[in-house]
């Protein structure tokens, strides 16, 4: 039987939320699942890895992400274990690491997959920031995929079978690209691409200071704070907050757009949100055509009231 690998992405030894999706998807393929995980503390991850056939654990006293080490190590694992497919997450790290592995192993990689039909070898992925979708066939022996977070179903495993654990060392090749350090963000921001809830502000926010209102609600809901391009260009928000065609593509359960008119480029970045709420004083704003719920009104009145109502639920 063919073998499929899953790269289990960790951040400071904590599992990324979407690893569950990647593992569930790999199991669905019907192939032997090999989980590839870089950790010295496997025990804390075992629950999540239930039902996989083998765990390839990479150990080292320093597992700090260096793309050259990681890509070389994984490329060798692919060869040693005859993996025919490799799945990862379309995260910042996935988009850095997977193309390197694909180039080294001469594999075909498709990033940002939203559906994978293993039986018919058909992958669905958004193009033009999701304004169109494409179905792709990969004519290659070895295929790699990164999946968009929050899209694939998660199935709990009922398997009682203990996975076999194989330990490997990190291949410390010469570093061509050296990550010296990680600069933390001033405030602990929720990663927009994985966030369950996002509250975003647009030009209607009027000034940078007013984003505090959104941050307060975000804190309450454990949500991320996003922005439209207009808000970023006006200096109200930083570019890492931008949602849209030239920003992040997000996929939360709930997206609350405050003072965003809803340009086609912004919509492209958030339209797959399960529920979209629009708050805008202009009843003609295009965002209302796309929103599940809308309130026409001054956001400086609506947002504080919204906060008050949410506090009632979340502080109960």
């Amino acid at each position, binding site marked *: 039987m063919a073998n499929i690998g899953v790269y289990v992405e960790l951040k400071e030894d904590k599992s990324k939320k979407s690893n569950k999706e990647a593992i569930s998807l790999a199991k669905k393929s019907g192939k032997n699942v090999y989980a590839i995980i870089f950790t010295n503390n496997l025990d804390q991850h075992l629950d999540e890895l239930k039902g996989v056939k083998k765990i390839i654990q990479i150990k080292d006293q320093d597992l700090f992400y260096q793309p050259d080490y990681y890509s070389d190590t994984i490329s060798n694992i692919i060869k040693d274990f005859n993996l025919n497919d490799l799945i990862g997450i379309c995260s*910042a*790290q996935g*988009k*850095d690491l997977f*193309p*390197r592995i*694909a*180039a*080294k192993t001469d594999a*075909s990689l*498709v*990033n940002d997959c939203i559906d994978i039909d293993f039986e018919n070898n058909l992958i669905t992925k*958004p193009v*033009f*920031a999701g304004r*169109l*979708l*494409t*179905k*792709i*066939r*990969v*004519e*290659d022996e070895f295929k790699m995929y990164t999946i968009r977070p929050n899209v694939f179903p998660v199935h709990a495993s009922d398997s009682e079978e203990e996975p076999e654990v194989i330990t490997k060392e990190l291949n410390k090749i010469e570093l*061509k*690209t*050296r*990550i*010296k*350090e*990680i*600069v933390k*963000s001033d405030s602990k921001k929720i*990663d927009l691409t994985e966030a369950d809830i996002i509250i975003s502000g647009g030009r209607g926010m009027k000034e940078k200071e007013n984003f505090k209102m959104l941050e307060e609600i975000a804190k309450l809901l454990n949500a991320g704070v996003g922005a439209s391009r207009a808000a970023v260009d006006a200096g109200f928000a*930083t*570019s*890492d907050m*931008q949602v849209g*065609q*030239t*920003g992040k593509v997000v996929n939360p*359960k*709930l997206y609350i757009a405050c003072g965003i008119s809803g340009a086609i*480029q912004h919509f492209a970045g958030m*339209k797959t949100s*399960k529920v979209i*709420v629009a708050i805008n004083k202009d*009843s003609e704003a295009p965002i*209302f055509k796309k*929103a*599940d*719920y*809308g309130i026409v*009104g001054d956001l400086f*009145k609506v947002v504080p*009231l*919204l906060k008050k*109502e*949410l506090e009632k*639920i979340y502080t109960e």
Partner: protein
Amino acid sequence: MNIFVCIKQVPDTEATLSVKNGKTINEDGIKWIISPYDEHAIEEALKLKAKIPESNITLITLGPKRCESALRGGLAMGADHAIHIETEEHMDNRAIAKALAIAIKQEGNYNLIFIGKQAIDNDSYLTHIYLAENLGIPVSTNVTLFNYESEKVFVEREIDGGEKEKIEMTTPCVIGAAKGLNTPRYPSLMGMMKAKKIPIKKLSLQDLEIDEIDNKIIVEKLFAPAEKPQGRVIEGDIGDAVKELVKALKDEAKVL
């Protein structure tokens, strides 16, 4: 210093997109632009040239005849030379990166290659990393800060949750430009006049000794996603509307 900037021509972000023959977009009436991330790549090259004036900036693109206007646009911003690998063929990212790598190598010496971290049509996030791996040189993607000092490159790249990686590379290397990197300039009138006179070097795939295109990624279908049904605007007093909204989010949509 020899700087290359790889650019791609894409439909304007405002363009209305429709599908032709179920596989490609309908190009009629489309306004074409340089992919925005590639504009950041050009701008960063120009900024470096301002510091190291003896530098040479060469733009390079691959695509049909229409892509010439993208090169003209980049020349008008201030690039010195332009190479057009002209082909009507559909090529996947791997095939494109291979062709770009061969063309850059043919030019001789290269110190830095700037390129957008993605093109906003296919959103593949692949070409720049494949290009670097083809050339066997370092690469950073999603770069929001760039510094060059005596053959060393220092960059910051944005990762998840607003954090940044500080990275060091040696030249030659590839820089995958992201939005926070800079603000691309508009071409000046003089720049546009000057750009018209710069000859564009035309190359065919045969010139690169590519006889056969080995596409592994085959597009079977291109289509528009299903539209969401129109939602509802909650009318009435704002206080009541907000209450109703929160109730609906909690009980009806179950997202709170």
